[in-house]
Each structure stands twice: as C-alpha cells, then as structure tokens.
C-alpha cells in the first residue's frame, strides 16, 4: 500500500492532564491500543478534530515510551480551544511524524547538554530530556533551565520535581517571572537567569520558548562564550501539509515542516529574517 501522508490515522485520547491554567497534556494511542507511530525527539505531528481543523504540535513524550504519545497543548486558538474541551475516550486524528529531530544520536552523544525552555516551550524539550534520561550513560552533564510566567504555568512540574531533579549529574533550575506566594525558588526572566548561572560555554545548548525569550537568551549565551554552531532551537510557522508542499512554512530555501523545526543557530543565520 502507498503511504498516504495527508490521510491521518485515528487516535484515541486515553488520558488528559491539566498542567497549567491554559496547558493540557493529552495521551493518545491508536484504536488498537498501541502507539500510533515511531518518532524521534523534536519531531511533530498533525493533530485534528474533524470539522474544526488540523494543527501541528510537537510530540511531547519521548520516543522511548513505546506505549503511547503525549501532546502538551496550550489553549490559544480555535482548534486548541476545542482540543481543550475533549474528554477521555474521544477519538481524534493524527498524522506524522514530521520534520527533522534533535540530533540526539549524531551530535549530542557524549556531550554536556544545556536545555533552556520558557513556558510551553518545554513541550518539545521534554521529549529530548526524557530520551537523554533513558540513555543517560550516552550523555554528559545535563543542565535544565526552565521558566514560566508563574509557578502555576510551569508545565509538567510533577515530573520535573519528582524525577528530573533526582537524576544523577543533572542540575535543574526553575524560575518564574514575578514573585508569588508559595514560591521560594528563583524569580526573574529566563535570559537573565541564564547569565547569572554562569554556565559552561562548552555545553551544547537547546533553546525552546517564545521568540522574545529565544532572542535574549541567545544574546546571553553568546556573551557567555557559547558557539553558535553548538546552539539548537526550533521554529514554529503555520503549516497545512507537513511535507514541504503547501508552501506556508517557507523561509528562504527551507520549509520548517520538512527542514526544521529543529535548526542549528548557524543555519538560522543564513536564512532571511522572516520567522
């Protein structure tokens, strides 16, 4: 049978977790109860509610999870609003995986890794972080810096506080934008926190978050002496097909769906500034 890239598979929502006031994580399996397809960290999938629309989301769960996939989705548009109203047992459609993954095998192996995320930007990074945890001995030191508007906006805080902080050779730094009752951790924006932490510039950095956070964090990393070729991030543009044909996510001679969403900073430098 010919692989039909635009015809989706049916997925069943088996669990819904409310992470923050506007982020929910959806666990999805196929109608046979098995995982829909294999993927690599950083890859995306098209999720759709027939009659409402189809959108691209990063696959939040690690590829090493062989039972199901998870999508952490922020409510911010007409499709995500309907997705947030879903109930367990509801069927949706899913197709993918799309895009280039983080080079966890080809490049990250043996390296010290710095993960920097802001808000819902943790979604794609959670996939890489958990992949690295699974094959922990293949990687060096891991540093995670994660920030959100408030403590209530930190996605997946249970996994972070109960599992990630206890990993060997792993440092986790959390921060929120403004002081808040019940929060005794760091307060401040991610970019300035990153500079304060005085991180080792020989680490491979992976950034994901709102464009403004990426911009200032990148500046900070460069000031600390990080090399642009050792910094990775992801782009997000509107997509319809996921396979470089519909034309929407075109930036320069690249399509974000096919050539991205993961880009090395040196690759981004060569692209016109239109993303």
């Amino acid at each position: 049978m010919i692989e039909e890239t635009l015809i989706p598979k049916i997925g069943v929502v088996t669990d819904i977790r409310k992470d923050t006031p506007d982020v929910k994580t959806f666990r999805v399996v196929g109608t046979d109860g098995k995982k829909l397809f294999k993927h690599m960290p950083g890859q995306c999938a098209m999720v759709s509610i027939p009659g409402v629309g189809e959108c691209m989301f990063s696959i939040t769960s690690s590829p090493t999870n062989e039972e199901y996939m998870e999508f952490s989705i922020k409510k911010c548009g007409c499709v995500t609003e309907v997705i947030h109203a879903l109930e367990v047992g509801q069927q949706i459609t899913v197709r993918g995986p799309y895009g280039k993954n983080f080079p966890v095998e080809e490049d990250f192996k043996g390296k010290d890794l710095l993960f920097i995320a802001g808000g819902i930007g943790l979604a794609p990074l959670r996939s890489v972080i958990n992949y690295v945890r699974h094959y922990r001995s293949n990687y060096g030191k891991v540093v995670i810096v994660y920030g959100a508007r408030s403590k209530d906006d930190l996605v997946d805080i249970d996994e972070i506080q109960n599992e990630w902080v206890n990993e060997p050779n792993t440092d986790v730094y959390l921060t929120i934008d403004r002081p808040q009752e019940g929060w005794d951790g760091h307060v401040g924006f991610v970019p300035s926190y990153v500079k304060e932490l005085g991180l080792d510039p020989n680490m491979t950095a992976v950034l994901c978050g709102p464009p403004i956070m990426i911009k200032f964090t990148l500046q900070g990393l460069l000031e600390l002496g990080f090399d642009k070729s050792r910094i990775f991030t992801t782009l997000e543009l509107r997509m319809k097909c996921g396979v470089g044909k519909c034309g929407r996510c075109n930036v320069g001679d690249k399509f974000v769906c096919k050539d991205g969403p993961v880009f090395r900073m040196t690759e981004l430098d060569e692209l016109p500034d239109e993303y």
Partner: protein
Amino acid sequence: MLKISKSNLNALYAKINETMGLFIPIKKAGEVNYAVWGEGKEVSLETLKTVKSPKNMFFPQTENMMKFKTEGKNIEIIDVRDEKRPFVLFGVKACDYKAIEVLDKVFLADPVDTYYKARRDATTIVTLACSKPEESCFCKVFDIDATGAYGDVTVWMDEENLYWQANTEKGEALTATVRELFAEGGEAEVAAQQSATKAIIDQLPFSNLDLSKFKPENLNELFDAAEWEEMSEACLGCGTCTFVCPTCQCFDIRDFKTHEGVIRYRCWDSCMYSDFTLMAHGNSRTTQMQRFRQRFMHKIVYYPSQNDGLYSCVGCGRCVNKCPQNLNIVKVIKKLGGKAND
C-alpha cells in the same frame, strides 16, 4: 511525422474520446479554458493562453480529500477518491508543459502526493507548439523552446494541417489508437514554422531578460533589497497572479461540515493573502511587501535553490496580462536583475 487536415480534427477528438477522456481548450462564456470535450463544444486551439493554466487538471482548484463520519466519540475516515479514468490533455503550450514539470518536483517528491500522482499517471499530454507568441511571452528566458517537442505527443498546426509526433511510450500508445486518421509527412512544414516562430520570439520585448543575478548565493542580498517596498506599493493582495500562474502550488486544507459528515478538502491558496501565515501566536509576514517579496523570491531564488537551479517561472506571461495593478515578475527581474536588464 504524421499529419491530418484541420477540417478533420473533430474526427480526431471523437476517436480519442472513444478510449480516453479528452480535455482541450474550449470556449465558454467568452473565456477559453481546458474542459471536457464533447460534440458541439467550441474547441479553440488558436487561443494562445487559456485563462487558467492546465495545472488544475492535476491540482484542482478544489478537491475533496476524505470524509469523516463521527458517531459519539468515534471517528471513521472514508476515502472519497474514485479511480481516475485515463485522459488526454490536448493543446498544452511548451511553457505550461514545463510548469507541470515544476509542479512534479513538488508533488512527486518524497513523500509523494498521491492525489496529484493519480491524475498525473492517468494523463497523456499532447503539447501544441506555438506559432503566434505575443509580447507578454518570455519563455525563452527560461530556456524553453515554444516550438519544441515536449510531452507525450507534440502537435504543430499551420493553416491547413495538424502535424503529430509521438515522443514517449504513452504517446506511441495514443498514436496507435488514432493512426488510421493520419497520413505521413509534415517535416518540412514543421521545420519552416519552427524557424519562423523562433524569429518572432527573438523580437519579443522580454525575450532577453538576464537571470544571472538570481542565484542562491545572492539570496540574502536580494531579500534585503530596498526596491521591494516601491515595487510592491500598488499590490492589492488580490492573489490573481497566483491563481493564473501555472507553477503556483500553495494550498490550504480545510474542513466543511455537511449533513453526511465532515468533508476535508484541499484548495488553492495564495501567499499574497494576509492570513496565509497567520497563527494563533502571530504572523510571520504582516505586510503586503513581505508577501509580495515571498512570491517572487520563491519563484526565482528559493525554488531554484531547492531544485538544481530550475526556476519556478516559465514565462507564460499570464501575470503580465492579468494583474490589475500591472505588477509582474518581469518588472521584478528588471528591477533586481542588474544592469543587463536596463
């Protein structure tokens, strides 16, 4: 080479139609476009440019892709495609044929677009050599020979006859089904017409545009050119250029609720529209200048960069004729292409 008297063309159409569908330029309500042939239809092979290019034979302006039936929490996906009847696309000009090759590189690239491929596989293309190119034509700029043999079969026409030459196996197969209507001959007439047409093409005002500046290594310099502001100032964002363009392939996928379930369809879209790149969290191209720039940069810089230097413009000149503001790719090439275009 084979020939048939023009007075006998209806017999040729009818013969083709016995075994395959026939799409051919047909005049309807004052416009000529590719449509299904039938007795009594007004075929117009003399029309140089159909309003719409033949791209919609493979990439229709709208097409239903699938249907969803929902019951309670369950969804069923129904494939709504039917088997494609083989058909002949007759009368395609060299520029429009080369445009199909541009589309092939998008839709047939891995992963293959099976909707497009099914139509492409079902088609035998008969190209028609140009004999009366006009001043908005500039296919020569893209090394396209308007009199050349492209497609599965090529035909040439003069006042008396239509001359027929099969170029591929598919073309030979089609020829076998209509061979009885033809006589041998025509080489001299075709050669004479080809040189006469080429002489006209050499004189056309846009035949000598210089594209040497439009190279991947100049991508950022061209992108940052100050001239985009001025060039795009009058653009209305109507998208006419993208709809008449034989190589524009951007599309949208949308859902439509019906009484029998949800239909998911694909339709042409345009990078000239403000919501083309609009997302919940923002828009990467907020001004018409950016959208205008995107269209032309894609045609003459981005696409060639991805496809071994092949330009995604074939010089058909439809945008030159149809833009309500008289903006077009020729002006862009002249403005940004350096001194050779003055």
